[in-house]
């Protein structure tokens, strides 16, 4: 993959890696303590696309906030390369769930805002902005305001705004949430193409199983309340990825393996009295072959 050696013009090739070691996060509220994350340990490999996956409410976003430095773990450590995370830094950029573009700025101004704050020279900003906007297919739309862009375009503007700053680690927290299924699929293809071209260490969070497998080099599956690392799956689908792989035997095999792990979590959530998990008990029972369907 060309991008992994950092040869792309969009990237300096200075990719980082993340070590999450024994991280626990407990929220205290009056007399109550809630353990959201418990003893999480994993590694986000340099130049790879790691996908963090788990049921809604399992603490994925909390984990992202800790890695981004927005919050501090109750115990455990997070390192970027050899340096301990003590707060937010521009080596880690986060693309959030909902579009966070400034509505009063054009696409161009949104994309270059970070560079301006960092006092990058005007000449360099212009050059990089042109390159990035062309790369995400928004050059013609650079003077439009976010409200004048479609959902897919807004997500691409978000991506552009992150990659122009050349972070060592790009963190994406369900960036395609809220898009319709077809646009989402096209955005996944666009994003994975960009990753394959440029490389960079990517940590992508989602609860969509097909999205996770389609994108990932490695899939990290979390448990449900408290969030722990349940399993890691190497996704050995070849790159470049393309949509036809969604119908490949290997894709379906990995999907089955991941669903099996998620079922176990569903069963636990149900046993814990989670209302949403009422949906899942039927699946767990059916899975075990206890429930015979009526023909």
């Amino acid at each position, binding site marked *: 993959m060309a991008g992994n050696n950092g040869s792309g013009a969009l990237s300096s090739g200075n990719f980082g890696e993340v070590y999450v070691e024994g991280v626990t996060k407990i929220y205290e509220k009056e007399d109550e303590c809630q353990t959201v994350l418990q003893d999480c340990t994993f590694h986000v490999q340099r130049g790879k696309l790691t996908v963090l996956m788990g049921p809604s409410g399992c603490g994925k976003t909390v984990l992202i906030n800790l890695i981004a430095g927005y919050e501090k773990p109750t115990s455990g450590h997070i390192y970027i390369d050899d340096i301990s995370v003590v707060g937010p830094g521009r080596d880690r950029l986060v693309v959030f769930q909902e579009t966070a573009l400034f509505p009063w700025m054009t696409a161009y101004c949104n994309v270059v805002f970070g560079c301006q704050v960092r006092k990058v020279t005007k000449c360099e900003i212009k050059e990089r902005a042109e390159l990035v906007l062309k790369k995400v297919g928004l050059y013609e739309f650079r003077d439009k305001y976010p409200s004048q862009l479609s959902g897919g375009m807004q997500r691409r503007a978000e991506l552009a705004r992150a990659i122009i700053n050349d972070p060592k680690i790009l963190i994406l927290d369900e960036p395609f949430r809220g898009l319709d299924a077809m646009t989402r699929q096209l955005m996944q293809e666009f994003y994975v193409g960009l990753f394959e071209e440029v490389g960079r260490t990517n940590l992508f969070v989602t609860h969509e199983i097909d999205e996770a497998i389609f994108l990932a080099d490695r899939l990290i599956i979390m448990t449900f309340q408290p969030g722990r690392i349940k399993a890691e799956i190497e996704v050995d689908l070849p790159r470049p990825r393309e949509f036809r792989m969604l119908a490949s035997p290997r894709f379906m095999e990995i999907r089955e393996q991941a669903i099996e792990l998620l079922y176990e979590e569903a069963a636990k959530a149900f046993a814990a009295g989670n209302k949403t998990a009422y949906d899942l008990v*039927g699946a767990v029972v059916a899975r075990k072959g206890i429930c015979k369907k009526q023909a």
Partner: protein
Amino acid sequence: MARNGQNGQGAISIRNVTKIYDPEGVHVVAMQDCSFEIAAGEFAVIVGPSGCGKTTLLNAIAGFDNITAGEIYLDGELISSPQKQIKPNVDRMVVFQNGALFPWKTVMENIIYGPIVQGRMKKSEAIQIAREMLNQVGLNEIESKYPEELSSGVQRRVEILRAMINEPRVVMLDEPFRGLDAVAKTVMHEFLMNIYCTRPRTMFFITHDLDEAIFLGNKVVIMTTRPAQVKKIVCVNMPWPREHHILGSETYLGLKKEVLEAVHEEAKKAFEAGEREMA
């Protein structure tokens, strides 16, 4: 209890249907010369890019909206044309994307409301049938709960039961499982398959999820981007009831590839057309 699907009722014939929104003004051609057939008791799944007219078609069959040209027949009777549009009726039930249960009624009261109001069943009879249905799908414990006490997936199942108790000729579902995760969807599929196998009806099921489309459908109708026409019809010849392990079978993967390629091509066209409109 009558089994309309088994009695050969619920055949839909869509003939050269065109729908233009705001013909005097913006003039959006949502659907043009669209034709296809759904046999009585068939599970038809309609897929296609957003805005391709899937819901337009559903509205015309349900009697919520009229069409600009063409005809739609139900069991040989004209139900929709520019000259004639029959009103919504319990013979064509719709389950929407968003929950539409009465929040002030229990699950049981919600399910039996329709047949009692229409005077088609006595209360005791409706309760008995509703209990049978709830039992059959393993939801017998929730009959006295209110919708807000239930998860969205269970609410959706109750809505489907509420539609089915009316013994409609056609059940129309507009992305009923949108927003549920992969595991929760599996449960919904098992549920719907169970209901369909024991109370067969013609199903008109709209979705964006291709696995769902192939797993559930007898026939997958792929629509083109706007103006909508039928791009391709894929017949799914896999026996009922279906188990989840078929998802890895060669037949299944072949079908998925076929549907995926057709839908992807249209999604791309729709996406590019959308971007041109924004420029």
